Every structure is written in structure tokens, then in C-alpha cells.
């Protein structure tokens, strides 16, 4: 499939769910979609077009929590990054673990670092943060502040 065909397929099938499409460069396309269409768009990219799921990046902008799902179509060297914007107070989106196993770890990571809940993820346990880390503190949030009174933040040189 050529690049144009891919974009046509995407915009044709999900015309209502696509909020914006940024055709940034020959290798990079960013698509903002309605979170409800995430599984559908991902199925199109992964199952039908044979894209590989690279990873997902969660970003806390001050107005929303965004997650970008990056899919690479290696035969044509096109990276399609699907962006969903979630409510900052209670970010919730469908899990992609039903579609491919590659989503498991990254959803756990975004859950603990940004506080996003993934509907349908079977085991949303901690992945990277230690057990004694407080539950309601998410390090990658903009309002993260030092919570540990015993932390030493100088190098010991007076």
C-alpha cells in the first residue's frame, strides 16, 4: 500500500472520529482521534495494514493528558502517531491488550507514571516504581512535587 492509500483508508473509515490530521513530513503523520475510536483505528493499522506498534507516549499538557500511539509501516517508512486527549482529572481509555500483547507493559507504565486508567487491562500493577511509592503521586504529571522528606538533593559539598 502506498502512503496516500494508507491515509485515504484511515480518513475514509474513521472520518467522524478523526479530529485533526497533521501530515508533517514524508515519514511522519500525526492523527488526533476521539478516544472511543482507538481500538478501531489500532485494528486497522495493526491487523489490516500490518503496521508494527512501536510504543505509546503519555504527555501531561496542562489542559489534558495525551497519549500518542506510534505505529510504523516499515515497507513504506511511514510513522503514524495516533493521539488521544483524555480528561486530566480522570483519564480513561480502552486498553489495547486485547489486540496485541505489546501493549501490556507500556500501559502499566503510563498508568503508574501518569495515572491513566486502561479499560480492560487485566493486571494494572506497578512496573517500574517501587512498592513503597505512594499511590496517588504520578511522577510525570506537571504538578509533581517532592514528597519525600528524607530525600537529599545536594551533593554533600557545602
Amino acid at each position, binding site marked *: 500500500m502506498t502512503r496516500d492509500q494508507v491515509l485515504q483508508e484511515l480518513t475514509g473509515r474513521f472520518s467522524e472520529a478523526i479530529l485533526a490530521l497533521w501530515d508533517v513530513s514524508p515519514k511522519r503523520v500525526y492523527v488526533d482521534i476521539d478516544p472511543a475510536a482507538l481500538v478501531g483505528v489500532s485494528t486497522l493499522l495493526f491487523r489490516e495494514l500490518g503496521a508494527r506498534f512501536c*510504543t505509546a507516549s503519555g504527555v501531561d499538557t496542562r489542559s489534558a493528558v495525551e497519549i500518542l500511539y506510534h505505529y510504523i509501516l516499515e515497507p513504506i517508512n511511514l510513522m503514524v502517531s495516533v493521539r488521544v486527549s483524555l480528561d486530566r482529572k480522570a483519564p480513561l481509555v480502552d486498553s489495547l491488550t486485547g489486540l496485541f500483547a505489546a501493549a501490556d507493559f507500556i500501559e502499566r507504565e503510563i498508568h503508574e507514571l501518569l495515572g491513566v486508567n486502561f479499560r480492560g487491562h487485566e493486571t494494572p500493577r506497578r*512496573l517500574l516504581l517501587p512498592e513503597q511509592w505512594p499511590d496517588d503521586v504520578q511522577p510525570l504529571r506537571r504538578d509533581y512535587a517532592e514528597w519525600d522528606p528524607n530525600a537529599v538533593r545536594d551533593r554533600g559539598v557545602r
Partner: protein
Amino acid sequence: MKKATIALGPYHPLQEEPEFFTLTVDGEQVVDIDLKMGYNHRGIEKLSESRTFDQGVYLVERICGICSTSHPYAYTRAVEDIIPVEVPERAKYIRTIIAEGERIHSHLLWLGLAGHFLGYDTVYMWVWKLREEILDVMEILSGNRNNYGMFRPGGVRRDIRAEDIPVVLAKLESILPTVNMLKAAVLDDPVLHARLKGVGVLTREAAIDFGALGPTSRASGVDHDLRRDCPYGAYDRVDWKVITRENGDVFDKLVVRVLELFESATIMKTCLENLPAGEIDAGLTTIPAGEGIGHIEAPRGETFHYVRSDGTNRPVRHKVRAPTFMNLPTFRATVRGAYVADTTIILAAIDPCYCCTERMAVRDPSGRRLMGGPDLVRLSRAKTERLRKEMGLP
């Protein structure tokens, strides 16, 4: 049979990196595993937000020591992708040379560790001694054995001097005969065939489902390599092959890595011989607001960096995803049904780099430790000995 759980890790003298696998076994075979990470989590993504783009390169270099060039390479490409801008030709060649040098040292390191886990300590010592030659090459080119500090957004920081090139080429030539000998010794060894063929098989479907990368996926027949598919650096200017195999077992993963060594040496030599003249830096002064993605083929697979900028000199968000993050979950698929004695080599076959990702013991259901990591390595080496005796070999 009564089920027991085995925990692998977190500390073993030869597997330097800490992680914690808990295996559930039924007699001699593994039923399931659970992975506990976090022993290496240092919050680098958050730290990057308070570093300028130039400083960020030094930060990401220290995500992982073994693949310390792959992260700066992906990061600088992500920053350059925001604009977007291509770096000068000479910079591309130098970047490729450093990246391939790292691939050679990383694969040699892996070969040594795998040799140790299997009881081939001579291979381990020989290969690590050989690796010193590559580290000498890197020291001549960049000034340091690891953490080369060669990258910056827009190009490379240091040039390669013309008088160093013949010395480096001679060193590369000098190690190839020994690597050839090791290749024959390792790939034609009947004990290794018996030990590794059919062990820890990752099917092609599973590799795609897990999003497996690098040699771990290429050994399962997934024909992808970013150097060919999403070309960067000088890879599209050199004649080289992507190595794939069909069976996805530990033996195939070994073959892929050993053969990739030769390809890397070819790429490195060709780039050194044809290094074009010119600038080494595009001279970037400001990074505009926007998003960029940089992904390159590290020794273990695709390293992926995503950078968002708001026009200031610091990233607003820097996402790092190392290849082992995608490869580690495949361990769950490959080790189920395997023998306990094979668990260390199946894990080693992914070439796990936990520091990139953020580390096995047997416990009984009450949590009491039955076996530790060193015991599992001992089991693995003993199995090789037993096979050697059964086959009547010296």
C-alpha cells in the same frame, strides 16, 4: 506434580543487571513466570525535561552502558525531526561508524556471556579479550571506551582524524580471523546444537504480537531492520545484508548475532574507507516548537525516542523506549514449558539490557527460596556437560 516457584535474580555475578523473575515450575518444567522490574528506574524521562537539548545527550547516553550510542543517536534524530533537518554527509558516516562499532562490542559481549552460561568459559574469556580490541578502536575514534560523547543535535561533536583511520582499519582486520574461528567453533559444535536447537522457541506470530525487535525477532523470521527499512546515517550507501533465520530458537538467535558481527565490520570498514570530506555539524541554534520521533536500530532492536518541544531550549516531554522493553515480555512466551536448566540461556538469548528497560529464583508456594540465580547457571552448565558426555565428546 507439586508446583513450586523459582525466582531468578536479582543479583548474579555475571549477569550484572538486577531484575527479578519468579518462575513457577512443575517438576523440571517451567509453567509460568512473573517479572518484577524497577531496580534500575532512575526517572530519566523526568530529568530530561530539566536539561537543554545539548545536555540531554549526555543524560541519555547513561541510560545504558552497553548500547550507550543508540540512545544519543535516537535522541538527536528525534530533535532533528522536529525541524526537520538532515545532518551533513560526513556526520552521517561518522555516526554510522560509531553505531556499528558499538554493535560489534555489544554482540561480542553477549557472546561471552552466553558462553559462560553454557559452560564455555574459554569462549567467554577469548571473546572478551577480543572485545578489548574494539574498545581500543572506540577509544581511538572517540576518546573513551564507552560513553563516547560523539553525538549532538545537528551532527557529531568530534571529527575522525585521517591518521587514525589506517590504525582503526588494521585493528578491525586483526580481529576478524579470530571471530571467524569462534564462529566456526560455535556454530558447528554438536553439543551446542543439541543444547540450543529447539530451545526457547519464539514463533513468528508471537514475535509480531509482542512487537519483538532486533535479533530476537529476526531469528523468528520477521524480516525487518530499521537500517534498511527506515534508513538513516550512511546505511543506504553501503552494501550489507539483513540477517534473518526461521526457527526462533536460541540457536538461531545466536547465529543471527554472530553473522551480524561480520556485517557490522563490513559497514564500519566501508564507511571508514569512504569517509567524505565536509562539515560535521549542521549548526542548529534553536529548536522550534513541535514533535519529533527518532528511532534507530540498536544492537538489541529499535530504540525509540519521542521529543516534544515548545520552542524553548528544553524538551517539554522526552519519551524513551528501549528495545528490551518490547523483548522482555517474549520471555514469558519462550520459557513456558522449558526445562529449568535452560531458563538462563533462554533469558540471555533476548540479550536483555535492563538498564535500558528498567532482572530468576525458585521459590516454593510459601515463598521459601529453593534455588537462586547462581544455582540456575550451574544447572545450565551441568546440562551442557551431561550432553557432552552422552554424545561421547571430549
